[in-house]
C-alpha cells in the first residue's frame, strides 16, 4: 500500500525569550493510504503540534514531511495554503464553522477556495456529502441552529467535500457527549471505509481510540508505541 504521508525525523521546538522548548523530538512515521490512525497521548505529549505539522499549518524545525508524495519543505505561506487547499481536510475540536454561513455554505467554502467556478457542480457535491453525513434536511441551517454533533458532521463534510489526500482531526470528539462522540467516530470510519480517505485524529479518550485501526502513542514528543489493529485495512 502506498503512503499517504511520511514523516522523517520531524522536530519542532518553540522558542521563548530565553528557552527553546522541544514539542516534537524526531518523529518518523509512515501513514499508509486509507489508514484510520489515532495519535494518542496525554496533554503536552505533542499530539496537536504533530497534527499541525502534518497539516502544513506549522513548519518543522527539522526533518521532512511528505504528503501524497510531495514534500512541504521550503514552501512559502502561499504555497502552503495552496497545498492545504488541494491535499488536506481538517476537523477541529471546537467545530470552527463560520457562524454566519449555513451548513451548505460552510461546506461549499473549500470548493470555492479550489476555484471551482461551476456553481451547479459545487452545489451538487455539497448536497451529496451533506446527505452522506446525515444532514440532508438541515443544509440551510446556520451553526447556532444545529447541535454540537450536527455541527461536527458539517465539519466532517467540509473536510471531505474536496476529496483530500488526508483528513486531520484534532480531538474531534472532545466537545461532544459520549453517544455523539461515537456517532462522529462511526461516521468518520464509514467515510474512511467508503472512500478510502486517510484519517489521522488525535485523542486521549480510550473509547475513541477503539475506533482506530492504528494507534500511535506519543510521550514527551517521542513515539512511545505504534500499535496496529487487526481490522486495519491494507494490513
Amino acid at each position, binding site marked *: 500500500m502506498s503512503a499517504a504521508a511520511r514523516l522523517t525525523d520531524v522536530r519542532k521546538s518553540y522558542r521563548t525569550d530565553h528557552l527553546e522548548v522541544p514539542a516534537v523530538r524526531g518523529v518518523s512515521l509512515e501513514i499508509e493510504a486509507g489508514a484510520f490512525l489515532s495519535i494518542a497521548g496525554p496533554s503536552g505529549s505533542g499530539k496537536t503540534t504533530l497534527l*499541525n505539522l502534518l*497539516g502544513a*499549518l*506549522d513548519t518543522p524545525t527539522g526533518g521532512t514531511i511528505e504528503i501524497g508524495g510531495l514534500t512541504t519543505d521550503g514552501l512559502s*505561506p*502561499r504555497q502552503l*495554503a*495552496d497545498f*492545504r*487547499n*488541494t491535499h*488536506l481536510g*481538517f476537523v*477541529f475540536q*471546537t467545530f*470552527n464553522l*463560520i*457562524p*454566519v*454561513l449555513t451548513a451548505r*455554505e460552510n461546506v461549499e*467554502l*473549500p470548493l*470555492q*477556495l*479550489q*476555484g*471551482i*467556478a*461551476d*456553481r*451547479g*457542480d*459545487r452545489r451538487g457535491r455539497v448536497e451529496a456529502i451533506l446527505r452522506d453525513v446525515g444532514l440532508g434536511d438541515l443544509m440551510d441551517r446556520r451553526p447556532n441552529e444545529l447541535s454540537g454533533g450536527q455541527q461536527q458532521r458539517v465539519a466532517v463534510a*467540509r473536510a471531505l467535500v474536496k476529496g483530500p489526500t488526508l483528513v486531520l482531526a484534532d480531538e474531534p470528539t472532545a466537545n461532544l457527549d459520549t453517544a455523539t462522540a461515537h456517532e462522529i467516530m462511526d461516521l468518520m470510519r464509514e467515510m474512511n471505509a467508503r472512500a478510502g480517505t486517510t484519517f489521522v485524529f488525535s485523542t486521549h479518550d480510550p473509547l475513541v481510540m477503539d475506533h482506530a485501526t492504528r494507534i500511535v502513542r506519543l510521550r514527551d514528543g517521542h513515539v512511545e508505541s505504534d500499535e496496529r489493529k487487526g481490522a486495519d485495512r491494507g494490513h
Partner: protein
Amino acid sequence: MGTDLRAGVIGPMLTARLAWRNLRRNRRRTWITAATVALAVLLLQLEVATIIGLEGQSKDNLISYQTGHAKVFAAGYFAERDELPLDRAVTDASGLTLRLEAIPGVSAAAPRVVFAAQLSDGRDQVPCTGIGIDLEAGETDVFRIPQAVTAGTFLSAGEPGLLVGGGLAELFGVSPGGWLTVVAKTRQGAYEALELPIVGLVGTGNPDIDRNSFFVPLATARRMLAMDGGATEIAVRFGAAAGEATTLARVRSALAAEPGLEVLGWRDLEQDYLAMATAERISNGIFLGIFVLLGVVGVANTVMLAVFERTREIGMLMALGLRGAGVRRIFVVEGALLGLLGAAVGTALAICLMIPYAAYGLNLTALYGEIDLGYPVRDRLYGAFDGTALVVVWLLTAVLSGFASFYPAMRASRQRPAEALRHV
C-alpha cells in the same frame, strides 16, 4: 453557471455576503461606527453643497454684475487695468458691439466706459469707480443691474443720474433723491466735475460694486470724459446653447485679425476670485478631511476588533487553503461595506437637509449680520444639489474605509495558521 473564481480566495459574491453578515454579528458596534461615519459624511456633504452653491452663486454674480462671460478691450488695457486708462479705449464701440452680437453663441454685447472718479457730497470725497452703461444697447441683456436695484429706480436713457452702490450711499448717508458730485479726469487729463441726482441704489452682493462703484448713463460718461463714440470695454454674454469655452474661442477667432483688441473670458478677468475660491476649497477640504478621517479611523478600529475576535476563524480559513490575499480581501471588503453603509446614512440625511437648503437657502444676514464671506454673493446662500458630488463623496468614503481597513487586514493575513487556531 458560476462566477469567475480564483483559487485561494473566496469569490466576490460570497465575500460580500460574508462581509454583510459579519457586520450584522455585532450590530451595536456596527451602527455606532456607521453613525460616526454618517456624521462626518453628513457634514462633508453639506459643506460640499455649500461650496458648490457659493461658487455657483459667485460665478453667476460675477457674470451678471461685473464681467459678463467675456470682455473685449483695446490691446494693452488689461495689463494697465488698475489705472483705468481712458487712452486705451475701443474707438468704434458701436460697430464692434454689433459685430460681436453677430457671432454664433453670443446673446448680447454692451459697451461700457469704466473710469476712476471721486464722489463728493461737498464735505467728504471718496475715490471710487464710475461705470458708464449704454441704456439703449444690450446692457440689460448682458448684466442684471436693474434687478439689483434696492431703492429708487434704474437709470433712464437721456436722463442724467446716478445709480450708487448701497455701501457707498451708506458712507455718504444719501438715498434716492439726493445729489452727489462726480469728479474725474477727462481722456486728455483735465478735471471735470458733474453734479448728478441719485436715482437709485444697487445691492448686488459683490463688494466691488456695492462699496466702490456707481453707474451713470454711457452718454453722460462720454460727454464728461470726452470719450465720443469710445468705450473702455465691450462686455459680452453668451447664450446657453453652446459651451462657454466654445463661444469664447469663436469670439477670439472672430477678432483674431485685429491686433488692436484683446478678448478675456470671465475666468481670466477674475483670477483673484478664483485663487481665493481654490484656497477656500483647500482649507475647507483639509478641515472636513480630518473629520472624515476620524470616521474612517473608527472603521479601521472596528475592523481591528473583528480581526481580534475572529482570529480562530481566520486560522480555520487558512487551514482550508485561504491565502493571505484572501484574508485581506475579507476584512477590506468588510471595512469598505461599513464605510458604504455609514456614508449612505450620512448622504441620506444630507439629502433631507439639502432639499430645503437648495430651495429656500440660508439667510446669511440673519445668521451672521453684515459679514464679508469673501464670495460675491447676496444675503441668501443656496446649497447646490449636485448628484455627482453626492455619489462621489459617498463612494470615496467607502473606498477610504476600505483603505483604512488594509492595516488590520494585513495583520490578520500575516498570522500563522497554527497560532491563529490556538487563539482563545
